[in-house]
C-alpha cells in the first residue's frame, strides 16, 4: 500500500467516489488538472478516499466539495455534488457552517464542532440532526491556506438515543417514590413534556368501570382543550377497549396547537397507548404521547414511546400495589392492636373491681335483709346489674381465652338429654312468667355425648335467654334427638324472627340484629358469637333458620364419640371439676325483662339450682349456705350424712375416701370437712395431717367421726389437728349442732383468711407462694387461668412443670432458670421470663416477688405475682422484627439478595429448621430459594411441593397453617406470586401471634421486594446507558477493556476508556474520569469522549490533544477537573507518546516482573487553566510488557493512600503477567474489587506488547515464505532470542506445510496462523479447515519428520482434528 504507482496516487481504490473523481473533467473545472494540484491537496484527497470515516475536502475560494463514499448517506439527495461550491451543496445550513469554514481559511487554525444540531431536510422533512465536524486547514505548497479538510460523523442516532435513554432512566428513577397513584402520574408527566415527548396526557380507569378520567397532564400549563376525549378528542376509550395502540395523524385538525417541546413546529401526530395492568391484569388506563416533528415516527421512535408507556404503567402499577399493600398491612396491624388492647383492658380493669363490689354488696344484702323496702330494692337493682356486668365480662374473657388458645376444655361423657333438660328447667319459671309455653323434649339418646359442662351450660343458657328476649306469644321449645352419628339439640321459639338478609351475620361478633321489638334493648351482640365458638370447640356446628314474624330455630349438631376431640382433653365420666351454676345471671336478667319486674328470694334460690350434681357456690356473705365435704367409705352412711346435712341447709359434696377428700379441698376448700376415721387409701387422721401441712388448707375445720370410743381415740384425733370429734353412733341433732358450731367458729376464725383468699382469687394477676425449697404451695385462679396448672396438684416442686423444655428450647430454659435463681438470692425483685402453658403453648410472664415471714408457721416464704405479658412481648418482638426486615431489605443490592437476607431473618425469628421462598410464576418450574440446601423445585419432597402449591389458592398475605410445625403465606413478587414457607421442624404450634407477625412481615417484604426490583431495573438501565455510550465493542488487537459501575448508590458515572485507530496504523488511547455521578456526568463524559476522538484523529499528539480538549472542556458545564490519560501507541514498535491531565499514572509491568509508573508528561486536570501549555513524554514498551491504564475507582479506598492502591494493582498485574490480557482484565477487576463492590465507577484498559499476530493465507506452498517473514518480524518484536526464533519458525513452518499438504489436497482453502505471547509463554496455532491424516511411517518414512521436528522444537504440541478442520496448538517457554 505504501508503494503505489504515481498514477493512482490522487484517486486510489475502487470506491464509487474514486471512480467518479477519476472520470471527472477536472481540466475543464475551476480546480484544474490533478497533475497541477498542490501535493497537500493530493494527499488530502487520497486520505479522504481511503478512509472509512466520512470526510470532505473543501478547496479553493468557493470551497469546492470533494467527498468519499462514507459521506454519501449524510449527503442524501444532494449527491452527486463533486466539485460544486460548498454553498450550493449545503445551502440549507450554510449560514452555520459557512462562517466556520471561513474562519479556518482566514486564521489557518483548526476548529471543530461537537454534536452540532442542524435542522436539515434530507429525507423530505425538516429533521433534527447532529454532527461532529473537525475542520483542519489545508495549505498549498507555498504554505497558504487554500482549503479545509473535514472529518465528519453523523451523531444523530447517538445523541437522540442518549437523550431517549436519559428520559427512560429519569422515568425509572421515579420508581419507588410515589406513595399514591395520583403522585405516580404527576411524576411521570413532570419527567416528560420535553423534546421527544412534547406532550403527555394520562387517563386512568375509574376502578370497577370502563370510564376514564384524566390523571395528569404534561407540561402542566397545557391548554385544557387538548385533553378532550370522546368522538372529537383522543381515541382513548377505543384504546382502553381494544388494548391496541392507535396513531393519531390529524392532531392539528382536532386540537389547539400542542406544546412543541422546543421545536419550531407543533406536533402533527400522537400515539395513544394502553397502560397494561400487572401481569395479565386488566388495562389500567391510557396514555397519549405526542410525537415531536423533529424526528420521523420510525421504528426506534415507536419502540421508545412504547417503553415510555410501559414504564408509566409500571410506575402506576407499583403505586397501586403500594397503596393496596400499605392498606392491608395497616388494617392488619390496627385490628391486632385494637383486639389486644381491648381484651387486656377488659380483663385487667373489670374483674377486680367487680369482685370487690359484689362481695360487700352481697354482705350488705344479708345485713340489711330486714331494712326499709326502698333500700332493699335499690340493693337488688345494684346486685342484678352487677351480675349482668359480671356475665358480660366473663363472656368477653371466654373469647379472649379462646383467641389465645388458653380456653381449657375437659370433655366428659354425659347424658346430654338429662344435662340439657336440667339446664332448661332453670329457665322454666322465667319462661312461664313471660306467659309462654315451655316444651322440653329430651328423650335419652342411648349413648353418652362428650361435652365440657361449663361450656355447654353457657351454650344452652344463652340460646334460652335469647329466645325469651324475642318471644312475646307462643312457646319456647328445647329438644334433643339423635341423627345418625350426631346428637342434635334444638332451641326454637315462636318469636319475632330474623330477616333473611340478617341471618348470615347472626353469629358475627358484636353484630346486633336490628329488631322491631324485643323485651330489652340491652345486649352486647356477643352471646351468639360465643355460642358458635363454644360449639366449634366441641367439633360441632350450629345453624339458625328463621322466618320474620314466625320464629327462630337454632340447631346444634354434636358428633358422638371422641375422635373429633383432642385426646388429652377427654376425661372419664365424673372426673370433671365441680361446675358451679353460672345460671343465676342469665335467669336474673331474663326475669328483669318481664312486665312485673318482680322476683322473690325463693325464685333466686331456685335459680341457683345445682347442675349435674354439683353443689351451689360458696359466697362471701353469711346469707350463703355453708359448704360441707363429707368423706365416708360406707355408702349408706355417706347417703345418710348427705341427706341429714342438706336438710340442715348445707351444700354437701360427698366423697368415698380421704384421698378424694384431700383433692377436693385443695381444689376448692369447703367450710367444713366431716370425715370418717377409717377409710381406704387415706384415713381420716392422715387426711387431717395432710390438710394441716399446707397453708392453703390448714384453716379448713375438720370434724372426725369414729366408731372407736374412748378418751384415747379422741385425743389421737385432736392431736392430729382435728377441730372436733364425734363417736358413732351419734344423734342427728348432735351432729347438726356440732357442724353449726364448727362452721360458725371457723367462719369467725377464717373471716380474715377468706377475705384474703377472695381477694387473691379476684386478682387478675396470677398469685403464688413459694416455700424455702422453691416449691409453689399456693396459687390463685388467675394462676390457673394463665398457666393451666390448678391447685389440685399442689405443691409444685422445682423444676416447675411450666418451665420451658431444656431439650427443645435451651435458650428459653436458660432465661427461666436465671430468673428463678434471682428469687433465691434477692429479697425482692421482678423479671420477665418465658413459661409454658399446660397445653404446651408459649407465654411470657412479668413477675415480681418478695420474701416474707409466714406469721403462722414462722417460715420464710416467697410471695409473688405475675402478669401475662405475651401480647406486649410479641408486640415488641414484632416492631423489632419489622425494623430488622426493613433494614435488611433496604441494604439489599438486588431482589434475590433482599429475599435471601429476609429468609435468614425469618429463620432466626422462629428458630425454624428452614425457610423457603418459592416464586410461583407462570412457568412450570418455580424458582426456589432456601435457607437449607434445597435449591431446586424438583428436589423438594412431594408433600412439601403440594403444600406450597396449594398456597396459590389462598388469599394474598393470609397465613395458612395446615398442620402443626409449618406455615405458609403468599405475597406479590415482581415476577409472579411468592410463597414463603416456614418449617419449624418439630410440632411447635404456629400461634395466632406468629400468624399476625408473619402477615405483617410479608406485607413489608412485598413492598421491599418491589423497591429492590426497581433498583435492579434502574441499575440495568444505567449500565445499558453507560455501555451504549462507551460504544462499539471493536477493539484493536492486544487490548482489553472493562467498565464497572459503582455498586452503591446506583452506578453511572463519568469514567471512560477509548481507542482510536489512526489512519497510519497507530492507535490513540484514552482513559478519563469526569467529576460527579449520574446522568449528567455520563453526558459530559460522552461529549468529552467524542471530542477527544475527533482531536486524536487530527494527529497533533497527546499534549496538543489535551490542550485543545481544555478549550472544549472550559465551555462545557461539568467538565472542569476531568482527568485524562491520552496516548498514541505505535503497535509495530511499542513506542508510546503520552500526556496526562492530572490522571493517575499508567503502570507498566515488564516480562521479568519489574514495574514502572508512567509519571512524566503530567499537567493539571482539564479546564483548570485552559491556556496553559502541556507536556508529553515517550516510552518504548519492552517486549511482552503489560500496560495498565485505569481510573481512580480501581485503586482509591477510604483511609488508604493511593500509593498502596497502585502497588496492589501493580502486584496483581505482576502475578498475572503470564495470562492472556482479556483474562487478566477480569482477574484485576475481581481481585481489586472490595467485598461490597466498587464504591466509585471504574474504567480499565490493558495492552500487552506486541499485539497478537494473525495471518490468513491461501493454502498454497507459495504463501509459506511471506508468512515466515511476517512471523519472524513478530517474534523479534516479542523479544525472542535468535535461536528460539529459528526453532519457532521451523515448527510453525512445518505446521503450515502440513496444513497445505494434508488439509487441501483436493480443494484450495485458507490457513490461519496465530501467535500470542505472555511474559513467559509463546503460543502459536495453525488452523485449517481440512482433515489431517496421521502419518503412516510404513507408507512413507519421511512423513513423520515434520511432526517430530515440531515436538522437538516446541515445549508442547497438540493436534486437534475434527469434521470442520484441524488445529495445531504449540507452546514454547520464553526464558527470562
Amino acid at each position, binding site marked *: 500500500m505504501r508503494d503505489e504507482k504515481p498514477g493512482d496516487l490522487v484517486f486510489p481504490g475502487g470506491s464509487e467516489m474514486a471512480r467518479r473523481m477519476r472520470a471527472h473533467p477536472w481540466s475543464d473545472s475551476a480546480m484544474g488538472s490533478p497533475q497541477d494540484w498542490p501535493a497537500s491537496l493530493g494527499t488530502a484527497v487520497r486520505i479522504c478516499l481511503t478512509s472509512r470515516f466520512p470526510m470532505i475536502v473543501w478547496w479553493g475560494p468557493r470551497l469546492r466539495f470533494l467527498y468519499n463514499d462514507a459521506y454519501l448517506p449524510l449527503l442524501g439527495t444532494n449527491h452527486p455534488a463533486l466539485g460544486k461550491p460548498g454553498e450550493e451543496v449545503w445551502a440549507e445550513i450554510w449560514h452555520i457552517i459557512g462562517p466556520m469554514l471561513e474562519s479556518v481559511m482566514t486564521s489557518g487554525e483548526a476548529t471543530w464542532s461537537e454534536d452540532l444540531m442542524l435542522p436539515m431536510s434530507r429525507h423530505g422533512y425538516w429533521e433534527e440532526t447532529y454532527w461532529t465536524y473537525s475542520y483542519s486547514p489545508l495549505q498549498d505548497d507555498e504554505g497558504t491556506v487554500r482549503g479545509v479538510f473535514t472529518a465528519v460523523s453523523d451523531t444523530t442516532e447517538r445523541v437522540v438515543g442518549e437523550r431517549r435513554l436519559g428520559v427512560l432512566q429519569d422515568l425509572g428513577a421515579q420508581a419507588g417514590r410515589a406513595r399514591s397513584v395520583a403522585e405516580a402520574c404527576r411524576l411521570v408527566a413532570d419527567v416528560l413534556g420535553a423534546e421527544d415527548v412534547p406532550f403527555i396526557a394520562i387517563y386512568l380507569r375509574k376502578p370497577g368501570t370502563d370510564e376514564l378520567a384524566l390523571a395528569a397532564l404534561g407540561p402542566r400549563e397545557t391548554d385544557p382543550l387538548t385533553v378532550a376525549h370522546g368522538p372529537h378528542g383522543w381515541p382513548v376509550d377505543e384504546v382502553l377497549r381494544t388494548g391496541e395502540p392507535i396513531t393519531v395523524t390529524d392532531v392539528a385538525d382536532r386540537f389547539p396547537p400542542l406544546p412543541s417541546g422546543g421545536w419550531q413546529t407543533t406536533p402533527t401526530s400522537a400515539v395513544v397507548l394502553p397502560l397494561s395492568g400487572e401481569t395479565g391484569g386488566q388495562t389500567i388506563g391510557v396514555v397519549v404521547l405526542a410525537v415531536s416533528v423533529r424526528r420521523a415516527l420510525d421504528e426506534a421512535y415507536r419502540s421508545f414511546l412504547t417503553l415510555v408507556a410501559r414504564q408509566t404503567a409500571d410506575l402506576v402499577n407499583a403505586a397501586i400495589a403500594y397503596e393496596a399493600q400499605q392498606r392491608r398491612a395497616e388494617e392488619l396491624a390496627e385490628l391486632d392492636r385494637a383486639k389486644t388492647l381491648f381484651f387486656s383492658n377488659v380483663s385487667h380493669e373489670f374483674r377486680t373491681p367487680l369482685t370487690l363490689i359484689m362481695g360487700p354488696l352481697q354482705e350488705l344484702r344479708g345485713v340489711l335483709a330486714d331494712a326499709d323496702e326502698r333500700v332493699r330494692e335499690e340493693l337488688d337493682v345494684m346486685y342484678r346489674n352487677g351480675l349482668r356486668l359480671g356475665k358480660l365480662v366473663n363472656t368477653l374473657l371466654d373469647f379472649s381465652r379462646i383467641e389465645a388458645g388458653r380456653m381449657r376444655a375437659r370433655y366428659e361423657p354425659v347424658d346430654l338429654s338429662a344435662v340439657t333438660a336440667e339446664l332448661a328447667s332453670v329457665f322454666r319459671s322465667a319462661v312461664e312468667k313471660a306467659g309462654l309455653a315451655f316444651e322440653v323434649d329430651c328423650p335419652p339418646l342411648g349413648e353418652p355425648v362428650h361435652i365440657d359442662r361449663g361450656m355447654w351450660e353457657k351454650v344452652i343458657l344463652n340460646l334460652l335467654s335469647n329466645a325469651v328476649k324475642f318471644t312475646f306469644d307462643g312457646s319456647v321449645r328445647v329438644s334433643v334427638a339423635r341423627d345418625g352419628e350426631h346428637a342434635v339439640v334444638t332451641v326454637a321459639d315462636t318469636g319475632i324472627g330474623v330477616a333473611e338478609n340478617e341471618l348470615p351475620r347472626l353469629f358475627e361478633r358484636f353484630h346486633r340484629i336490628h329488631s322491631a321489638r324485643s323485651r330489652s334493648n340491652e345486649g352486647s351482640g356477643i352471646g351468639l358469637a360465643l355460642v358458635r365458638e363454644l360449639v366449634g370447640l366441641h367439633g360441632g356446628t350450629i345453624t339458625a333458620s328463621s322466618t320474620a314474624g314466625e320464629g327462630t330455630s337454632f340447631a346444634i349438631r354434636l358428633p358422638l364419640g371422641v375422635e373429633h376431640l383432642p385426646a388429652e382433653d377427654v376425661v372419664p365420666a365424673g372426673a370433671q371439676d365441680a361446675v358451679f351454676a353460672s345460671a343465676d345471671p342469665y335467669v336474673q336478667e331474663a326475669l328483669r325483662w318481664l312486665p312485673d319486674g318482680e322476683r322473690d328470694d325463693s325464685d333466686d334460690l331456685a335459680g341457683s339450682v345445682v347442675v349435674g350434681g354439683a353443689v351451689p357456690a360458696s359466697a362471701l356473705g353469711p346469707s350463703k349456705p355453708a359448704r360441707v365435704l363429707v368423706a365416708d367409705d360406707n355408702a349408706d352412711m355417706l347417703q345418710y350424712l348427705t341427706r341429714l346435712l342438706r336438710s340442715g341447709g348445707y351444700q354437701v359434696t360427698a366423697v368415698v375416701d380421704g384421698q378424694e377428700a384431700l383433692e377436693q379441698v385443695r381444689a376448692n376448700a369447703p367450710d367444713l370437712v366431716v370425715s370418717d376415721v377409717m377409710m381406704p387409701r387415706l384415713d381420716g387422721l392422715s387426711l387431717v395431717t395432710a390438710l394441716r401441712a399446707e397453708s392453703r388448707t390448714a384453716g379448713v375445720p375438720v370434724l372426725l367421726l369414729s366408731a372407736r370410743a374412748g378418751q384415747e381415740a379422741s385425743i389421737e384425733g385432736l392431736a392430729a389437728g382435728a377441730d372436733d370429734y364425734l363417736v358413732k353412733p351419734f344423734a342427728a341433732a348432735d351432729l347438726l349442732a356440732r357442724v353449726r358450731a364448727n362452721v360458725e367458729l371457723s367462719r369467725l376464725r377464717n373471716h380474715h383468711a377468706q377475705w384474703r383468699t377472695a381477694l387473691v382469687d379476684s386478682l387478675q394477676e396470677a398469685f403464688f407462694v413459694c416455700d424455702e425449697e422453691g416449691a409453689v404451695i399456693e396459687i390463685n385462679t388467675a394462676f390457673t387461668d394463665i398457666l393451666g396448672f390448678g391447685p389440685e396438684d399442689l405443691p409444685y416442686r422445682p423444676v416447675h412443670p411450666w418451665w420451658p423444655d431444656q431439650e427443645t428450647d435451651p435458650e428459653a430454659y436458660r432465661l427461666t432458670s436465671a430468673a428463678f435463681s434471682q428469687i433465691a438470692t434477692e429479697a425482692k425483685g421482678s423479671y420477665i421470663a418465658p413459661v409454658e402453658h399446660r397445653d404446651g403453648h408459649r407465654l411470657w410472664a412479668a413477675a415480681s416477688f418478695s420474701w416474707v415471714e409466714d406469721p403462722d408457721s414462722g417460715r420464710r416464704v416467697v410471695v409473688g405475682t405475675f402478669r401475662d405479658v405475651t401480647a406486649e412481648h410479641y408486640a415488641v418482638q414484632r416492631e423489632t422484627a419489622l425494623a430488622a426486615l426493613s433494614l435488611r431489605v433496604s441494604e439489599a443490592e438486588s431482589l434475590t439478595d433482599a429475599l435471601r437476607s429476609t429468609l435468614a431473618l425469618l429463620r432466626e425469628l422462629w428458630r425454624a429448621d428452614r425457610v423457603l421462598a418459592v416464586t410461583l410464576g407462570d412457568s412450570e418450574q418455580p424458582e426456589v430459594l432456601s435457607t437449607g440446601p434445597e435449591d431446586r423445585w424438583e428436589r423438594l419432597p412431594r408433600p412439601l411441593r403440594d403444600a406450597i402449591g396449594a398456597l396459590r389458592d389462598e388469599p394474598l398475605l393470609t397465613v395458612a397453617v395446615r398442620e402443626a410445625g409449618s406455615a405458609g403465606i403468599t405475597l406479590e413478587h415482581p415476577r409472579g406470586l411468592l410463597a414463603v414457607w416456614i418449617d419449624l421442624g418439630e410440632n411447635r404450634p404456629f400461634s395466632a401471634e406468629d400468624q399476625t407477625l408473619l402477615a405483617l412481615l410479608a406485607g413489608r417484604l412485598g413492598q421491599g421486594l418491589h423497591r429492590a426490583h426497581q433498583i435492579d431495573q434502574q441499575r440495568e438501565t444505567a449500565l445499558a446507558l453507560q455501555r451504549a455510550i462507551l460504544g462499539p465493542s471493536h477493539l484493536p488487537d492486544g487490548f482489553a477493556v472493562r467498565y464497572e459501575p459503582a455498586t452503591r448508590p446506583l452506578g453511572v458515572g463519568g469514567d471512560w476508556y477509548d481507542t482510536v485507530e489512526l489512519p497510519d496504523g497507530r492507535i490513540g488511547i484514552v482513559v478519563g474520569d469526569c467529576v460527579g455521578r449520574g446522568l449528567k456526568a455520563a453526558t459530559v463524559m460522552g461529549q468529552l469522549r467524542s471530542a477527544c476522538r475527533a482531536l486524536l484523529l487530527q494527529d497533533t499528539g497527546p499534549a496538543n490533544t489535551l490542550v485543545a480538549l481544555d478549550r472544549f472542556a472550559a465551555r462545557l458545564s461539568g467538565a472542569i477537573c476531568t482527568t485524562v490519560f491520552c496516548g498514541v501507541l505505535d503497535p509495530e514498535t511499542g513506542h508510546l507518546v503520552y500526556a496526562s491531565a492530572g490522571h493517575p499514572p499508567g503502570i507498566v509491568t515488564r516480562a521479568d516482573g519489574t514495574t514502572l509508573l508512567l509519571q512524566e508528561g503530567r499537567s493539571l486536570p482539564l479546564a483548570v487553566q485552559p491556556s496553559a501549555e502541556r507536556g508529553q513524554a515517550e516510552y518504548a514498551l519492552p517486549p511482552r510488557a503489560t500496560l495498565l491504564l485505569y481510573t481512580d475507582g480501581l485503586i482509591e479506598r477510604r483511609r488508604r493512600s493511593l500509593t498502596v492502591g497502585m502497588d496492589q494493582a501493580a502486584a496483581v498485574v505482576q502475578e498475572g503477567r503470564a495470562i492472556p490480557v482479556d483474562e487478566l482484565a477480569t482477574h484485576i477487576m475481581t481481585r481489586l474489587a472490595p467485598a461490597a463492590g466498587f464504591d466509585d465507577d471504574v474504567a480499565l484498559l490493558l495492552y500487552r506488547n506486541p499485539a497478537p499476530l494473525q495471518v490468513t493465507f491461501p493454502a498454497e506452498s507459495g504463501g*509459506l515464505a511471506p508468512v515466515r517473514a511476517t512471523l519472524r518480524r513478530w517474534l523479534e518484536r516479542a523479544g525472542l532470542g535468535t535461536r528460539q526464533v*529459528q526453532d519457532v519458525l*521451523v515448527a510453525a513452518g512445518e505446521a503450515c506445510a502440513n496444513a497445505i499438504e494434508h488439509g487441501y489436497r483436493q480443494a484450495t482453502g485458507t490457513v490461519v496462523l496465530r501467535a500470542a505471547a505472555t511474559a513467559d509463554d509463546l503460543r502459536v496455532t495453525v488452523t485449517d479447515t481440512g482433515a489431517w491424516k496421521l502419518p503412516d511411517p510404513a507408507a512413507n518414512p519421511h512423513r513423520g519428520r515434520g511432526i517430530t*521436528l515440531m515436538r522437538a522444537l516446541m515445549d508442547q504440541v497438540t493436534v486437534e482434528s475434527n469434521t470442520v478442520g484441524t488445529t495445531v496448538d504449540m507452546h514454547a517457554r520464553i526464558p527470562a
Partner: protein
Amino acid sequence: MTTPLTLSTSRREDGSPVLTVTGEIDMNNADTFTEALTSASEEPLVLDLTGVDYLDSAGLTVLFVNAERIRLLVATPLLGPVLKISGLTELVTTDGIS
C-alpha cells in the same frame, strides 16, 4: 510467490564439485533443490548451505533421499538443531553447524 532460492555449482581448488545454496528451502522449492542436487555432479559433492536460513522437513527429505551424493555438508549453527534432531548428522558428514 515462490520461496527465494539461489543455486550455483562450482568446483573447489581440489576439483571437487560444490553446490552452493542461498535462501530458504521448503515444500515450495524442494523439487528445484532435488533437481539441482541430482544434476550438479556424478560424484558426491560438497553441499554448502551456509547461505540458507530456513530448512524444514521438505528440505530434510531431499537430503535424506540424496545422502549418498553428499560428501560434506557445510552449514551455520542456525540449521544445527534441525539437522541433528532429524538424525541427518549421523548419515552425512557435516561442518560448521555446532
